[in-house]
């Protein structure tokens, strides 16, 4: 079985431009168009958060679709389930807005839509080949890869660094 892809964050590459926020919001709008989406109702919501930590670190955070997802098990209405691709999704028709998922998410990435009274989070853009945030990221701080491929990259990077330091 081919491994499902995940969104990985490369902290050292994020410059805090928030392009991902816009791409995410637009993708989760009805019109899928920046200008029209602004006036839509319910307001389309961004699901990737670029946090700032002093002295000057930018940290993109989004749903990790946890293997043992606390939100899914805590949900008191059965609204949260996992797709075959491993994506944890909230079925907004079933969501009753009790916010138990918000209380248990250790990443703080489940939002509350106040107009619809529903919880929302990253759905990894089911209609796209590559999630909108990843596609939009100008520095490739967000990448969409399998765990295997991504950890391979990390290993290679580390090896490269070690070799270049030895040569010095």
């Amino acid at each position, binding site marked *: 079985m081919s491994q499902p892809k995940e969104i990985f964050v490369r902290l050292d590459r994020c410059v805090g431009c928030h392009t991902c926020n816009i791409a995410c919001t637009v993708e989760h709008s009805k019109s899928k168009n920046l200008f029209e989406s602004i006036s839509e109702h319910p307001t389309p919501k961004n699901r990737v*958060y670029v*946090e*700032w*930590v002093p002295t000057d*670190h930018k*940290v993109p*955070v989004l749903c990790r679709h946890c293997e043992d997802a*606390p939100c*899914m*098990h*805590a*949900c*008191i*209405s*059965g*609204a*949260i*389930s*996992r797709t075959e691709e491993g994506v944890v999704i909230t079925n907004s028709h*079933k969501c*009753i*807005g*009790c*916010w*138990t998922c*918000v*209380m*248990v*998410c*250790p*990443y*703080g*990435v*489940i*939002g*509350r839509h106040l107009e619809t*009274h529903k919880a929302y989070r990253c759905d990894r853009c089911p209609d796209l080949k590559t999630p909108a945030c990843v596609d939009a990221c100008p520095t490739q701080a967000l990448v969409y890869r399998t765990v295997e491929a991504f950890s391979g990259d990390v290993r290679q990077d580390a090896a490269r660094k070690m070799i270049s330091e030895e040569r010095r």
Partner: protein
Amino acid sequence: MVAKQTRYVIIGASAAGMAAAETIRKLDSKGSITALSKEQDMPYFRPMIPFMITGKKKFSEMMLIGQGPYQNANINVRLNSTVEAVHTTDQTISIKSGEELPYDKLLIATGSRPHIPPIAGIEAEGVFALRTLSDARAMALRAERTKHAVMLGGGLLNLKTAFALLERGLEVTLIIQSPEVLSQLMEPNDTTLIRDTLIRAGLRMITGCSASRILSDANGVNGVLLDDGREVVCQMVCIGKGVRPNVDFLSQSSIRVDQGVVVDRFTACNALNVFAAGDVAVTFDSTTGERIVTGLWTNAVEMGHCAGRNMAGQPTEYTGTLGILNATQVADVPFVSMGIVHTSGTDYETYVASAPKAYRKLVFTPDGAKLVGALFVGDISRAGLYRYLIREGRAVKGIKSFIIRRQLHYGHILKETI
């Protein structure tokens, strides 16, 4: 030789029982899993039963199997099956029908039942303690000929029920002994925003009072006599005075009971191959270490998972829970209450901030090193981060100021860790 199929028997087919069943199935594809329910309905999401009163959801929309994580576990659910005794020496249980059912691994997940205070006249028709779907159906039926309902107790269950009845156009009066609502989840000073929203919603409240008698005639309940002599005319009474573990059927067994079923850190009872989880089990608070019996869906599911792993032969330690761990929305005001939030007369380092539409209280250990409790009213975003810190019991060090100002985000935690 073919390995013998393990017979898993689960008494109680709600949060803890079904979570355990689901976990067992993941680890053991061959064993038989039988979940016994004394109810007449297939397992459902119990916290949703107020929707049965409003009529906003049908039963099919509350069913558990096939929803969320409860998929394809191949569990044999037997309804209308009240268990009367557990025989730990020959590893069988007795069902009310007279049947004896053998088990290799047994889970006691019988949950809890409403505590009914000894008030004169409480057995009258039209007095409810909402617990099961059948209760909700009966309430919905009674609501049709009810103008005014009286709720005894100001806990979360009664508030939710009260809103369901208000939605149906009933007049509702809440009678509470404490000075404010939700006294288990917050202190009187913390309730201002919630109290305002209750009043705006049209709920009447009588505080510092309790019912001394429930009055009735041939049509059932027709009033409540209060301990200050007042009489409130009503056609329905709802009791929300907490819950008690369902342990009566264990009185003849060797299983140790102290309030609830006593379990070790691996959710095992004192009898071999018997486990317990959920409302019926005595667990412990991960912040205080105190032994507690909780009545929370979320806790029950978590403990059920743990018990399931232990039953399927994967020893897993239960890390305890928070005695208070509630999130909900009362009318338009959401709130989250977690860990230690009752701080009056204690040395806990407490920070309170109040704004027109948001209130927060953050509670640290007396030395200020660890976060032990958080209460958010109005704005509950990212509450999970605070729960994580409370649960882990980690020194908050450099991120304390962000916690107090409620600006914490995952970036802070990440940078503290690496």
